C-alpha cells in the first residue's frame, strides 16, 4: 500500500484533516510525532477558555508551555489569578465574564485571590500585551477598578509604520482599544472619567446594560472628552444614569460613526430622568448635518415589551434629513413613529438602502412607503414592516428589489374588496371567490419574482388594532377565510415555484386551509425549506396530521410570535 504521509506533511492539509477530528482523535494526533505537534498545537491553544464548571482545563504548567500561542483568553474572574500571572505576551483578545457565579454549595469554586490581587494581575496583562485590543466584558466580578479603566484608556498602538520612525501621537490618534464590548456592569463615580475615555477611544463600541452611579442624584456633564470619540461602530443599549438628551448628546459626538445602534432609556424609569424628552428644537441643536457624516447604519431599537422614549415623526425626519444623501444602507426603527415626514426624508436614501425594518404601525400606515421601497431600492436585502396593501401594489411600478432575501410584511388584500360588505351568504357566490382568488394570485405572482428570497413572512398581527380582533377570529366569525394570503395551489401557490432558495415560511395568525397536496408541492419546489410557522388548518386534528407530515420530511414547525 502506498505510504500516505506526504499529504500529511503539508501543514494546511494536516490542519484541514484535523478539523474533522473529535477531541480524543485530535489529541492522539498531537502525540504522534513532533511535526504534528508543532502544526496542531496552535489549533488547540490559540484560544484558552477557563470556565469554573469545567474540570477539564489545561493546568497552569501546560498553559505556560504553550503560552506564546495563546491569542485569546476567555475566563471568569473567579479562577483567574493563577493563570493571569503566568506571563501572557501575545494576547490580542480577552473575554471576561461572570456567567457562572458559584453558589454557596460549590465550595470547590472558591474565588481565587482577593479582588485587588485579581485586578493587579489584570493590569499586568494589559501592560504586557500591546496587541490586546479586543475586550469583551460581561458582568465581570470583581468590577474593574478605575485603575483598570485608566490603563485601558491610555493604550498606545505600538505598530510602527513601515520605515521605522515612530510618528508622534496626535490627540485621539493611534490610541485605544479596537473592540470594546461591555455588558452588565456598573461604573462608579471615580471610574467614570476613565471609562468614558476608554469608550471614546474604541473603534467599535458596544455598551449594554451599563449603570453609571452618579453621586447625589444630580445629573452631571458627561462631555468630559478631551478628545473626540473614535468609534466607527457604536452600540448603546439600556444605559442607566444618563437621560435621553444626555445619551443623545454623547452619541452625537461620534463623528466617525458608520453604524449606530441605540436603545433610548426606558421612559420615566428613574427619578434622575428630570430633563424633558427632546423636542424638535432640542434635536435640532444636538443633531446637525455635520454630526454623522459617515453614517451608513442607524438602528433605533428597543427590547420587546419595553416602552421607550418615542421620537415623533418630525424628530425622526430631522435625523434622516441630517444624513448625507445616498449613504444610508441600514435603517431600523422600533418604538418611534414613522410617518409621512419620515418617509419623505427616507426618499434620498432609497437607492442605497439594503436593510429596512420598521415596526408595524396601524392599518395602511406604511403601505405606500413599502410599495415605494419595493420599486425604488435595487439593493434591498431585508424588508420588515407593517401592512402592505394590494391597492398600492396595483397602483405602483414593478418591483426592482430582485436581490431581496427577507420579506416580512402583513399582506392586506382587504383593499381589493373595494368595501364590499362581509356577508355570510357571499361565500357561495362564485364571482366573489374568483375575485378573492385572483387577488391572491396577483400577490403571489409578484412575490414569485423575488427568486433570492430565503425568508418569507406574511403573518398578521395577533390583534388587528383597528378592528380589535385577530384575523383568525374575524374569519371564524364570518365563517369564511378572511382576505389573507392562502398558501394553496388553487389560489396561486405555484406562482412561487421559482423561490428555490426559500428556507423559512411564516403565515402566523392567518387562517389557512392547507392540504397535503399543497405541502407536497412545497417540498418539491422549495428544496431548502426547513421551517414553517403558523397553523396549517384551524382545526386541531388535520393540523396535527399535516404537522406530522412536515416533521417526517425534515421541516421544523416554528413557534408563532405575537405581534411582529
Amino acid at each position, binding site marked *: 500500500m502506498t505510504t*500516505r504521509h506526504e499529504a500529511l506533511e503539508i501543514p494546511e492539509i494536516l490542519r484541514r484533516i484535523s478539523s474533522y477530528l473529535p477531541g480524543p482523535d485530535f489529541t492522539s494526533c498531537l*502525540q504522534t510525532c513532533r511535526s504534528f505537534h508543532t502544526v496542531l498545537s496552535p489549533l488547540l491553544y490559540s484560544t484558552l477558555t477557563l470556565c469554573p464548571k469545567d474540570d477539564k482545563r489545561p493546568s497552569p504548567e501546560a498553559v505556560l508551555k504553550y503560552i506564546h500561542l495563546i491569542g485569546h483568553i476567555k475566563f471568569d474572574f473567579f479562577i483567574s489569578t493563577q493563570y493571569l500571572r503566568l506571563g501572557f505576551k501575545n494576547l490580542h483578545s480577552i473575554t471576561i465574564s461572570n456567567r457562572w457565579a458559584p453558589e454557596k454549595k460549590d465550595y470547590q469554586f472558591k474565588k481565587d485571590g482577593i479582588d485587588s490581587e485579581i485586578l493587579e494581575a489584570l493590569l499586568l496583562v494589559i501592560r504586557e500585551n500591546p496587541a490586546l485590543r479586543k475586550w469583551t466584558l460581561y458582568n465581570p466580578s470583581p468590577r474593574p477598578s478605575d485603575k483598570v479603566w485608566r490603563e485601558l484608556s491610555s493604550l498606545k498602538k505600538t505598530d510602527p509604520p513601515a520605515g521605522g520612525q515612530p510618528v508622534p501621537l496626535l490627540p485621539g490618534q493611534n490610541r485605544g482599544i479596537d473592540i470594546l464590548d461591555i455588558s452588565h456592569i456598573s461604573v462608579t463615580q471615580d471610574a467614570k472619567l476613565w471609562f468614558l475615555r476608554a469608550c471614546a477611544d474604541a473603534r467599535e463600541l458596544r455598551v449594554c446594560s451599563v449603570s453609571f452611579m452618579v453621586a447625589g442624584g444630580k445629573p452631571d456633564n458627561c462631555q468630559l472628552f478631551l478628545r473626540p470619540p473614535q468609534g466607527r461602530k457604536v452600540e448603546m443599549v439600556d444605559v442607566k444614569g444618563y437621560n435621553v438628551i444626555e445619551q443623545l448628546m454623547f452619541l452625537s459626538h461620534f463623528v466617525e460613526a458608520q453604524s449606530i445602534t441605540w436603545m433610548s432609556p426606558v421612559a420615566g424609569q428613574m427619578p434622575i430622568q428630570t430633563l424633558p424628552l427632546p423636542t424638535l428644537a432640542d434635536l435640532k441643536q444636538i443633531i446637525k448635518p455635520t454630526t454623522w457624516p459617515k453614517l451608513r447604519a442607524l438602528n433605533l431599537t428597543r427590547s420587546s415589551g419595553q416602552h421607550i422614549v418615542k421620537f415623533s415623526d418630525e424628530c425622526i425626519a430631522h435625523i434622516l434629513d441630517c444624513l448625507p444623501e445616498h449613504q444610508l444602507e441600514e435603517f431600523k426603527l422600533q418604538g418611534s413613529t414613522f410617518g409621512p415626514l419620515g418617509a419623505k426624508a427616507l426618499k434620498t436614501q432609497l437607492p442605497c438602502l439594503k436593510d429596512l425594518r420598521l415596526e408595524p404601525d396601524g392599518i395602511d400606515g406604511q403601505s405606500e412607503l413599502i410599495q415605494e421601497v419595493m420599486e425604488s431600492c435595487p439593493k434591498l436585502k431585508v424588508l420588515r414592516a407593517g401592512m402592505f396593501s394590494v391597492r398600492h401594489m396595483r397602483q405602483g411600478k414593478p418591483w426592482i428589489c430582485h436581490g431581496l432575501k427577507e420579506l416580512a410584511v402583513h399582506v392586506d388584500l382587504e383593499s381589493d374588496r373595494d368595501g364590499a360588505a362581509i356577508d355570510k351568504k357571499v361565500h357561495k357566490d362564485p364571482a366573489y371567490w374568483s375575485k378573492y382568488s385572483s387577488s391572491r394570485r396577483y400577490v403571489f405572482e409578484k412575490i414569485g419574482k423575488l427568486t433570492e428570497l430565503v425568508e418569507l413572512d406574511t403573518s398578521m398581527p395577533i390583534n388587528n388594532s383597528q378592528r380589535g380582533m385577530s384575523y383568525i377570529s374575524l374569519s371564524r366569525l364570518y365563517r369564511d377565510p378572511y382576505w389573507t394570503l392562502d398558501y394553496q395551489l388553487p389560489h396561486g401557490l405555484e406562482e412561487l415555484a421559482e423561490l428555490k432558495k426559500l428556507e423559512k415560511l411564516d403565515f402566523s395568525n392567518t387562517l389557512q386551509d392547507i392540504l397535503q397536496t399543497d405541502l407536497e408541492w412545497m417540498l418539491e419546489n422549495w428544496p431548502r425549506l426547513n421551517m414553517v410557522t403558523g397553523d396549517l388548518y384551524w382545526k386541531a386534528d388535520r393540523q396535527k396530521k399535516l404537522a406530522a407530515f412536515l416533521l417526517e420530511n425534515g421541516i421544523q414547525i416554528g413557534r408563532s410570535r405575537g405581534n411582529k
Partner: protein
Amino acid sequence: MTVILVSSDNQDFKVDKEVAERSILIKNMLEDVGESDSPIPLPNVTAAVLTKVIEYCEHHRNDPVQVPEETDDPRKRSNDIEEWDMKFMQVDHEIILAANYLDIKPLLDVGCKTVANIIKGKTPEEIRKAFNIVNDFTPEEEAQIKKENEWAEDR
C-alpha cells in the same frame, strides 16, 4: 470549448473548459492567458493522478460552485461523503496533494475527510503504523504531551 492540460510526465489531456475550471488554479490561469489555445502545464501532477482528478471534475461538473467558508466549525462532520466519492478516494493520497495544488476545494475536502475517517478511533501508535510515521518523541515527552492535553478530549 476545450483546453489542453499537460501533466508532469508530458501527457496531454483534452478537457472541456467548464470541467477544467473546477480547479481555481486553472481557472485563474485561463483568465490570464485569455483566448489563446496554448496548453496549460501542470508540473506538479503526474498523468495517473491527473486522470483521476479529471474524472472527479467530470462527475461533479454540474455541482454548484462552493462559497468559501465563513466560519470554522470545529465539529465538522466527516460522515457525509457521497458514495461515488468514497469509492473514488480509495485510490491514492496523491489526489489530496493535487487537489491542494490545483485548488479544487470540494475534492480536497473529500480527501481530508477520508483521511480523518482513517485516523478516527486509532491510538497514536496505530496512526503511526497507518501512515508510516516515525515516532521522534522520547517516552517521557510523549507521556507529558498526553497528560497536558487530556483536557482537550472533550472538545
